[in-house]
């Protein structure tokens, strides 16, 4: 019985002592950290992709809370939903953000484009590119070693068996990581709904393009003439589409039909450009 009383007393005594100590310490020595940082961090998708321009999700969370000039809509993978939440937490105004996805501006598959040499070395586009431009005849085209595929954190890119990466529009968040690592800046970020995209990046003259690749833009300017809205211009032997005009005004893209090399056309996930092209011609 005595032991029981002692036990209770000791427990109560220790409990009180420690309780007091802790509360005292808490009052005296606690250091404040803005809890909103953690809240924002929780909201972010934790891809750590760096698409926001900060070295990681936590860094962005800190910046967006502490710095009033950092907008809440920088997280591209999170899209509007996250931007809204971040804005709510930080009390900032969320502006609508443009959704974009990656687009590969090359259709030079193994079949279409010449490989002049036989590259042996690290399977990486940057590595191949530093060796006098790699083994592809076209100096603008995709080297096909999949550096972009490797850096994609969202599993949205795959290398097709024909040597050109394809983007899955459902998974692509538009973080732009692939675009930064591409040594030939073939990948651009475009709005997903655009009907007309130019699948080529070559500023070479038509004759040279033809020599290297059967699927390149030769800069003939037919599409530019066809487009009633003036959305396509030829810049240094390459057709360039203003996707904004295209998206807003055009419903019936006539430019697609006349392109002699079929380089202007919508890109569809899951279908290799080469095959898709064949089907299109058949139809």
């Amino acid at each position: 019985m005595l032991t029981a009383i002692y036990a209770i007393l000791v427990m109560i005594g220790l409990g009180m002592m420690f309780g007091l100590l802790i509360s005292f310490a808490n009052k005296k020595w606690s250091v404040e950290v803005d809890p909103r940082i953690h809240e924002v961090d929780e909201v972010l998708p934790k891809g750590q992709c760096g698409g926001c321009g900060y070295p990681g999700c936590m860094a962005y969370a800190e910046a967006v809370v502490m710095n009033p000039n950092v907008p809440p809509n920088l997280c591209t993978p999170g899209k509007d939903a996250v931007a809204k939440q971040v804005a709510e937490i930080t009390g900032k105004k969320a502006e609508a953000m443009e959704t974009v996805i990656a687009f590969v501006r090359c259709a030079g598959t193994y079949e279409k484009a010449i490989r002049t040499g036989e590259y042996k070395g690290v399977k990486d586009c940057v590595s191949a590119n530093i060796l006098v431009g790699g083994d592809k005849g076209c100096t603008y085209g995709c080297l096909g070693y999949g550096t972009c595929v490797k850096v994609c954190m969202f599993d949205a890119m795959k290398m097709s068996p024909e040597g050109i990466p394809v983007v899955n529009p459902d998974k692509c968040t538009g973080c732009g990581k692939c675009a930064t690592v591409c040594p030939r800046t073939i990948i651009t970020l475009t709005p997903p709904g655009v009907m007309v995209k130019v699948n080529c990046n070559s500023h070479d003259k038509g004759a040279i393009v033809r020599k290297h690749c059967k699927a390149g833009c030769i800069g003939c300017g037919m599409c530019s003439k066809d487009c009633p809205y003036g959305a396509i211009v030829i810049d240094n032997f390459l057709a360039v589409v203003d996707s904004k005009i295209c998206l807003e005004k055009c419903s019936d893209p006539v430019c697609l039909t006349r392109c002699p090399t079929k380089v202007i056309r919508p890109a569809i996930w899951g279908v290799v450009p080469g095959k898709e092209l064949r089907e299109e011609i058949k139809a």
Partner: protein
Amino acid sequence: MSEYFLLFMGAAIVNNFVLTRYLGLCIFFGVSKNFHASSSMGLAIISIMTMSSMLTWTIEHFILLPLGLYFLKTIVFVVVIAVFVQILEMVIKKFMPTLYNVWGIYLLLVATNCVILGVPLINAEANYNFLKSTVNALGSGTGFAIALILFASLREKLQFSDVPKSIEGLGIAFILAGMLALAFQGFSGMIPL
């Protein structure tokens, strides 16, 4: 003197906390992914282990034993250590921010951990005096830190290996720990305890 030295060496190497006593494995596997974290953690463990061992010995011998409350030791030790670490963390955060940045975050991690609680319990079981418990705690902490740092550097090297996918991460960490324990087997029987 040599008695204390042997106790220290025994606790640190021969009866290594992780590799032969299987204590603190959560920290061992959790923190060793990063070399820097593990070296800070090692330091944190050594100091907290020693201090909490001193504290618990005092409480055990001046409160629990005289009152015949030996069976309460688990509860009391846990609470004492938890509170002590909590306060230590606050103090360091407030007064030594640089030190806090180095190993502050690990303090709370170890608060309720078997390595820290294990030492006072072992001390109590072996009935060591104050100095011996302190030396034992110091040795155990050092042994833990050595194993942790070695293990972390090994794991860092393994990052550059071609580990089969299925045992990547925890699996290979266990196998590696097994091999490290195998190497530590060489010390077995060195100091009879």
